[in-house]
């Protein structure tokens, strides 16, 4: 039982960055994990523009962890729906708690995310700021580019090659470059990769 719970908690501790707002009445559970950072999220989209939920983060640096938990509000501020492409601008905000160097206190986060994609290409950039008074005011920035070597029908397995660049001063690997594979099938997405310094990454996201 303990083993099962451990595996489950590891799976749930992964977090995926993407899809901050989905279709009306849709749920997203997503997780992302790198060597020294993980992030988990549960969001509900009230409309196709507004989602709320919970997001937790853990950054590890020099053997010490910084934990953050937020009640979040994500907003799709702008969307372009073209014939062959889509572009989005999302705004993130969160209010919650931080636990940094054995001290707990209130914290907040805010940020923005833009992306553009076709069936074969993806480009995205996001920036968040984490703030805990008198403790830290830290950014995390992430950029991704990717391509899909072939297009497949709606209900088939999709495959993408991507590269992620991330800047996260709260983590050991402050700057990381991570080539990865992204797959999705129906309502499940998963990604796996390894940074050029060897740190591994595994992400999972489900829409329902």
């Amino acid at each position, binding site marked *: 039982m303990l083993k099962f719970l451990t595996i489950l908690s590891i799976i749930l501790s992964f977090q995926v960055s993407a*899809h901050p*707002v*989905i*279709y*009306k*009445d*849709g749920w997203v559970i997503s997780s992302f994990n790198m060597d020294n950072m993980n992030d988990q999220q549960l969001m509900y989209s009230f*409309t*196709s523009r507004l989602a709320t939920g919970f997001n937790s983060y853990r950054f590890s640096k020099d053997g010490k962890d910084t934990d953050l938990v937020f009640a979040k509000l994500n907003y*799709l501020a702008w*969307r*372009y*729906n*073209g*014939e*062959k*492409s*889509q572009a989005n601008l999302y705004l993130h905000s969160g209010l919650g708690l931080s636990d940094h160097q054995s001290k707990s206190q209130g914290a907040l986060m805010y940020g923005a995310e833009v992306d553009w*994609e*076709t*069936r074969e290409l993806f480009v995205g950039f996001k920036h968040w700021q984490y703030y805990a008074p008198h403790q830290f005011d830290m950014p995390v920035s992430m950029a991704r580019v990717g391509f899909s070597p072939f*297009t497949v*029908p*709606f*209900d*088939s397995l*999709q495959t993408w090659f991507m590269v992620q660049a991330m800047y996260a001063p709260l983590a050991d690997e402050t700057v990381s470059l991570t080539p990865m594979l992204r797959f*999705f099938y*129906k*309502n*499940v*997405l998963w990604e796996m990769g390894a940074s050029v310094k060897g740190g591994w990454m595994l992400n999972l996201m489900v*829409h329902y």
Partner: protein
Amino acid sequence: MKKILVALLMVSSLTSWAESIKVEVNGMVCSMCAQGIEKKFKKMDVVKSIKVDLDTKVVHIELLENQTLDDEVVRKNIVDSGYNVAKITRE
């Protein structure tokens, strides 16, 4: 009496019809994101089947016999899924 029933059945089978709706959708580039379209229409009692075609950007909706679905409802489902309707045609 039997003849009347048979005649009624024949008339009713002649007048029954099943409508197909073809919806051209803009922005439909990601199959995972477009699952919302399928989910919303599949929930509807009047819908027999739905097929999303990413190549042509078309959503094909087949209704059950003698059922209808207003353009406004179709449009709302697509918009609630995060997309825009370019055109709706019926067969």
